């Protein structure tokens, strides 16, 4: 097997493992801010996974998809923080 493909597969599985770890923290985080924090990390991980997909399939469209995802991924965090501050903040 080509060593480049092997390293790309390895980095793909590392990213999938870290996404599952983050999902476990999203499931069992004790406070709601922990869950928002895990969601923030999850958006970064999905951007990285899209980039690795683009390297594996040799396709340039995944870079544009990851740019759009990077642009919109901070909006839900801002919306959730705004809601939490209005509801529970002092």
């Amino acid at each position, binding site marked *: 097997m080509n060593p*480049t493909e092997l390293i790309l597969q390895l980095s793909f599985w*590392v990213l999938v493992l870290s996404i599952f770890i983050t999902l476990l923290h999203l499931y069992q985080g004790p406070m709601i801010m922990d869950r928002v924090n895990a969601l*923030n990390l999850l958006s970064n991980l999905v951007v*990285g996974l899209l*980039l690795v997909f683009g390297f594996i399939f*040799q396709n340039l469209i995944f870079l544009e998809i990851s*740019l759009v995802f*990077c642009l919109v991924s901070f909006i839900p965090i801002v919306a959730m923080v705004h809601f939490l501050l209005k509801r529970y*903040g002092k």
Partner: protein
Amino acid sequence: MISLIGAISCLLGSLLMLISAVGLFRFPDIYTRIHATGIAPSLGLILLLFGAVCFFPSFWVIGFVLLMIAINFLTSPLTAHLIARAAYRTGLDLWEGSVKEEIDPKDFE
């Protein structure tokens, strides 16, 4: 050869993201977990985008990568600061090993 360099850089970036995901479980407090999720994925994304430049070497991709780094450097501190501010103002306690609290909690009205 240049694609091998890109693949190794891509592996380093994904390992940084794995370190950041493990840090969610290792840190005791929300304010220290923000260090794990706000800082390390930016460097990981930079390494992955360097891999993108190595895989698709063209002038267009370099501008694209610089644009993505600029967007990530704008939004990543924004979300980290917002999460820390909301966690403090909704009354989450600090870890008992913390040594300094700059703000007096009685300052809030």
